[in-house]
């Protein structure tokens, strides 16, 4: 049962009628979308500052509200009420559409992510393929933003973003499908269900067969490729504040900047949600309800990206291309073939 079906049942709508089901699905989507926006709102203006401050031994936002939490409201009002400055000679439709694509495309992916038992907007048969497809839509937005801004830094940032996504998309997908070799399905709920069995029992505690434990090599590869996909350190050359100002978002201000920033954070959480679903057993876990486990896991991945941001130096763009094509790609092929042989021997 997906969330859309549950809501259709609660409202007494017929799930087989397209229009009635669409209404139920809109409500389910609004719930999931709001849920993710709340996560991003906490992560962007508050948690990110707090985490970075903790890593660099400083005190961050602590003036407004308990633990400085009201900074979230203050920042939202501040950024939305800024004047929108449209630079000269920007390509108007493309310049306006880019933030929409970046923020929207990251939200699309959450349609198929299981966030708890039954908390999932849709569960199509090709869920994993769909989520990889929409996750890479954002690069179109990045290149549009970079080109349309008519700014040299933006242009460089957009081109770097494309180079990076080209190099890391294939390792990401190849490592992702190596999980499918075990699960034998692309349906997200079935991939999660396949990870609930007990792998080994140590001292009476059953370790679940999360694919991170079954195939740790693939997990590490996927984590690294995911860092590059969402453009975080050490792979943040598209934005590289010390080299090209802010990359593709140099010329964006006001609500457009908010959308770019929001899109990046939703993308980090989408990456975290994909990792959670295919490697960390999705929303399953003992005692606590599924949604809490889902939150713990995606925030753990978020914390990892912030840790990488504080701890690792940025790689140069030429090193980035070489790591991607000569390192990650070869390793992900090796992982795929080895996984296939291991599955072949077990089965």
């Amino acid at each position, binding site marked *: 049962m997906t969330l859309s079906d549950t809501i259709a049942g609660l409202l007494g709508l017929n*799930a087989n009628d397209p229009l009635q089901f669409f209404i139920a699905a809109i409500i389910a989507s609004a719930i999931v979308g709001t849920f993710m926006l709340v996560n991003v709102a906490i992560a962007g203006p508050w948690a990110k500052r707090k985490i970075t401050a903790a890593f660099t031994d400083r005190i961050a936002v602590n003036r407004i509200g308990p633990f400085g939490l009201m900074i979230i409201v203050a920042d939202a*009002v501040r950024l*939305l009420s800024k004047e929108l400055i449209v630079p000269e000679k920007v390509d108007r439709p493309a310049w306006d559409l880019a933030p929409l694509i970046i923020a929207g495309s990251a939200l699309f992916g959450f349609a198929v992510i299981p966030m708890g038992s039954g908390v999932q907007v849709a569960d199509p048969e090709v869920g994993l393929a769909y989520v990889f497809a929409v996750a890479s839509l954002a690069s179109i937005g990045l290149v549009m933003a970079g080109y349309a801004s008519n700014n040299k830094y933006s242009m460089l940032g957009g081109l770097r973003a494309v180079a990076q996504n080209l190099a890391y998309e294939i390792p990401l997908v190849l490592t992702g499908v190596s999980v499918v*070799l075990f699960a034998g399905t692309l349906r997200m709920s079935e991939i999660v269900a396949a990870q609930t069995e007990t792998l080994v029992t140590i001292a009476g505690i059953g370790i679940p067969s999360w694919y991170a434990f079954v195939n740790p090599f693939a997990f590490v590869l996927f984590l690294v490729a995911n860092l590059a996909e969402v453009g975080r350190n050490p792979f943040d050359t598209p934005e590289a504040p010390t080299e090209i100002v802010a990359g593709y978002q140099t010329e964006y201000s006001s609500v457009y900047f908010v959308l770019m920033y929001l899109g990046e954070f939703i993308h980090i959480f989408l990456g975290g949600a994909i990792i959670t679903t295919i490697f960390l057993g999705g929303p399953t876990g003992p005692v606590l309800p599924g949604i809490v486990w889902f939150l713990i896991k995606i925030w753990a991945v978020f914390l990892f990206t912030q840790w990488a941001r504080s701890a690792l130096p940025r790689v140069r763009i030429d090193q980035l*291309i070489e790591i991607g094509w000569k390192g990650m*790609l070869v390793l992900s092929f090796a992982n795929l073939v080895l996984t296939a042989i291991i599955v072949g021997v077990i089965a």
Partner: protein
Amino acid sequence: MGNPWIAIGALALVGLLIPVGMMVISKLLRPSVPEQGKRSTYESGEIPTGDTRIRFNIQYYMVALLFVIFDIETVLIFPWTVIYRSALENGVGLTRTLGPMLVFIGVLVVGLGWAWRNGAVKWVRSPRAEKRKDAR
């Protein structure tokens, strides 16, 4: 059970309406103070020199071509991974399930090796940068 693609379409609509809604809210809140010079392109505080849309070495067009090949290849690997395990459990031998895919991936790896040897997967330096490197 409703059609999952209707639900995905609904989320796509919501996913676009949220940013559009934020744009509308901001439109109502924000001031507009047009001023001379405010709109000029940012270039570290200087007056921009030259145009951005010039002929420019984007450095990775060979990589982009390679990407197309490997991307199609990942699409072809997807269906294989889905049926692989169930085929093995139904008694189809390894030579018929794994063998052909090994040949397929082998061909691609040989192709990658060829591209690698010919310098397609590296960040191409401009002739000027090469000259500077040689002079050093």
